[in-house]
């Protein structure tokens, strides 16, 4: 066996003294051979991103290397000067990042940004650079390279931008490619394409790939070997198939068990009651321009109809831009629909003035995606929860008492009412968000990507909580998500949206077993690691 491309040996990274642990990474050792993909897996805060940045020599100033070595093709990287390390970056190690939307300079043409790679390392002469840039764009599967080199990043989609990032990272044929959660921000079908692309380039060029991810589905798709990180320490390492089949460490077992299965559980029996929320012929069109300029129209929601019974969860799945979030917001009239009927039990709310709607607002509530941004940081948790009832005329003292009960209901201590949102973790905040939504005794909950920002283990807990609350309170839930695994586990029926329309609506088990629409089939096929995680939870 030849020398590994990357050999990390007993690497430790120290955190500043104010952090909640002393080491971002402790005594971590692993190696990657040419043409091999190693996945570093872990939850947020596990130190997986720090590992990638340490190899690249781009640690934040507060994080210091406390010991160990990083060898790239037998060359010790930790001993290099700044200037020498700059030559390694880009030439010997390429890197792609999580956020394709913001990872490219918005003011530079794509071609210039790719050419900059050659320029930084004095590679090729100017005309050869242009030619090579076109070849690279072609190689990562972007259409019409001659046009792509001239456009700016904002003219490309997220998936296209990530392809540009990959083209750039591979421009100088580096020995090692570091991919830091490169598909997390992408739609499932785009994700599948990008994973395929990375894998093809790896085998074509014999590049070693260090792939950072939190998603075991992705791991199953792409990794030859994996390293599992828990709180900065490697708790398990080995061949992907073996670790996924027979994880030895309890933490790995917990993580794998928490991955929602793509196989839906048996259907629940639901009482035949009149619908809690009925939507008929909903439509919303966005117009741009006006006043002299000719307008452009986008049909965000086009003739959408569905009904949800009490105690039922209807999933609304689709890719970004499919209009699923707009539907959710229209039901609450946070966005004003252009057409259609929205009925809460027996009350039609689509034509009410906002003032007339206010008393009915208690019946339909929302759980938001971002547990960090959706709670006012300057108000105590108790007041956040009590605010809705107080606005509806409930006595302040009674509302606060109810807030404490609700905190208990969502699995937090009632004493949390006196603390502020920043004192809680993401999962705890989402519990607070749920308590807030429940404070008004709603009949309908709209959950907009309510678990998408959470780690899998936390995600599983929140899903359990939502199921439990639904059983106890009998609320109808419209569950908006892009994640088919999550939808499989929590929804009774699923509506698939594409370009503003519902293309298929069926009971969950039926939809997964016999998808009738092409688009549904395409979505299902794109779910990463679908074979590895077909087990029923």
């Amino acid at each position, binding site marked *: 066996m030849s020398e590994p491309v990357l050999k990390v040996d007993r690497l430790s990274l120290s955190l500043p003294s104010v952090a909640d642990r002393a080491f971002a990474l402790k005594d971590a050792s692993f190696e990657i051979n040419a043409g091999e993909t190693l996945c570093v897996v872990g939850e947020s805060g596990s130190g997986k991103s720090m590992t990638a940045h340490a190899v690249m020599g781009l640690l934040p100033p507060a994080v210091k290397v406390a010991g160990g070595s990083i060898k790239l093709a037998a060359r010790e990287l930790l001993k290099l000067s700044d200037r020498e390390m700059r030559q390694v970056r880009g030439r010997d190690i390429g890197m792609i990042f999580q956020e394709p939307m913001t990872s490219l*300079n918005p*003011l530079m043409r794509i071609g210039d940004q790719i050419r900059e*790679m050659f320029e930084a390392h004095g590679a090729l002469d100017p005309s050869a650079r242009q030619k090579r840039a076109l070849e690279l764009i072609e190689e990562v599967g972007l259409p019409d390279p001659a046009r792509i080199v001239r456009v700016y990043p904002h003219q490309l989609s997220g998936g296209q931008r990530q392809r540009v990032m990959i083209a750039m990272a591979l421009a100088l044929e580096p020995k090692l490619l570091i991919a830091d959660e490169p598909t997390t921000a992408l739609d499932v079908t785009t994700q599948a394409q990008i994973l395929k692309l990375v894998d093809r380039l790896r085998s074509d060029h014999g590049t070693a790939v260090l792939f950072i991810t939190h998603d075991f589905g992705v791991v199953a798709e792409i990794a030859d070997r994996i390293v599992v990180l828990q709180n900065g320490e490697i708790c398990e390492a080995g061949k992907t198939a073996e670790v996924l089949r027979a994880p030895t460490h309890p933490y790995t077992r917990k993580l794998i068990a928490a991955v929602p299965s793509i196989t839906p559980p048996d259907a629940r029996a639901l009482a035949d009651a009149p619908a809690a929320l009925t939507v008929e012929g909903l439509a919303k069109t966005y117009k741009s321009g006006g006043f002299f300029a000719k307008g452009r129209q986008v049909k965000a929601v086009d003739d959408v109809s569905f009904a949800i019974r009490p105690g039922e969860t209807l999933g609304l799945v689709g890719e970004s831009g499919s209009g699923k979030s707009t539907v959710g917001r229209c039901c609450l009239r946070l966005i004003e629909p252009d057409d259609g009927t929205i009925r809460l039990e027996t009350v039609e709310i689509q034509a009410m003035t906002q003032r007339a709607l206010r008393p009915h607002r208690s019946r339909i509530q929302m759980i938001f995606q971002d547990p960090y941004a959706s709670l006012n940081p300057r108000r105590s948790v108790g007041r956040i929860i009590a605010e809705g009832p107080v606005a509806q005329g409930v006595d302040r003292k009674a509302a606060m008492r109810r807030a404490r009960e609700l905190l208990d209901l969502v699995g937090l201590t009632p004493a949390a009412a006196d603390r502020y949102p920043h004192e809680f973790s993401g999962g705890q905040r989402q519990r607070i968000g749920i308590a807030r939504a429940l404070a008004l005794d709603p009949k309908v909950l709209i959950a907009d990507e309510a678990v998408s920002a959470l780690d899998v283990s936390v995600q599983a807990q929140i899903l359990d909580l939502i199921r439990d609350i639904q059983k106890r309170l009998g609320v109808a839930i419209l569950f908006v998500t892009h994640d088919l695994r999550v939808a499989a586990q929590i929804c009774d029926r699923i509506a698939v949206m594409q370009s503003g329309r519902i293309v298929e609506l069926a009971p969950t088990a039926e939809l997964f077993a016999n998808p009738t629409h092409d688009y549904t089939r395409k979505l299902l096929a794109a779910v990463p690691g679908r074979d590895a995680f077909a087990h029923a939870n």
Partner: protein
Amino acid sequence: MDLLRFVAMRLGKGVIVLFAIAVLNFFLVRAAPGDPAQVMAGEAGAGDEVFLEQLRQQFGLDRPLYEQLWTYLSNYATLDLGFSYRQQQPVLDLILDRLPATLLLTGAAFFISLALGVVLGALAARRVGKWSDSAITTLALVFYATPLFWIALMSQIVFSLKLGWLPNVGFETIGAGYTGFERALDIGRHLVMPALTLGLFFTAIYARMMRASMLEVAGADFVKTAYAKGLSPSVITRRHIARNAILPVVTLAGLQAGQLVGGAILTETVFAWPGIGRLMFEALAQRDYSVLLGVFFVSSAMVVVFNLVTDIIYRIVDPRIEASA
């Protein structure tokens, strides 16, 4: 192509704005006590009925209001901004006489503040936390907080009276009879103090803004990408950070550019600079309405023009604007 349509569209809107301002002007004079004839007579220093009647006929003030408005607007359309009785000159001539001096002063101040502010701000951001950063931010704060007229008076005392480096007041040396290059140099020497004084305030704002903006952009994802490419820190600062950081400064500069004509009253007064600001101030003191309204109209026109220029520049420096126009 797109740019042409955009400019045409904006020019169209500009004409509408100017039309509205002209109409507003027309009714402003008529909102004053008495009729415009009395105002004019007052200006001319005479008040008897015969003279008033004569004025009314001469200016068509005995005609119906809509006819007067029509005449007024047609006059404005041909750039006839009225006549100042006090100065015995057409208003347009008075303004055109003063406009170059004002544009020279405010234009110079504008470019000084922009160049100085951007450079100092970028420098402070590069050395954030070091003593040079503290020095620049403190100085910026001092200039931001100090009243303009005080800086003007102090600089006159120090650089003109004590040190004798620069002329104290005025636009050029009166009676020296300089021509050509010599005259330009003379005006330039007179320009230094007022332009710097006027520019300091905005230098301070731009410097602070540029610094904050640079620090914000330095944390952006594409800067991380630039490091990962192996670019040197100076290239990253210049090409990736500074270019993006300058965008909010351009927006602000556009707002300042709109004030180029009307915003220098104080400086012009202290330095006896013969510009629009002083013309306006004198007209105000003498109740010379036609001049005031003329200045009002011309400054509005300048605001419209400079806003358009800013928007065009913005579309050039930021390619994303095109998409959302």
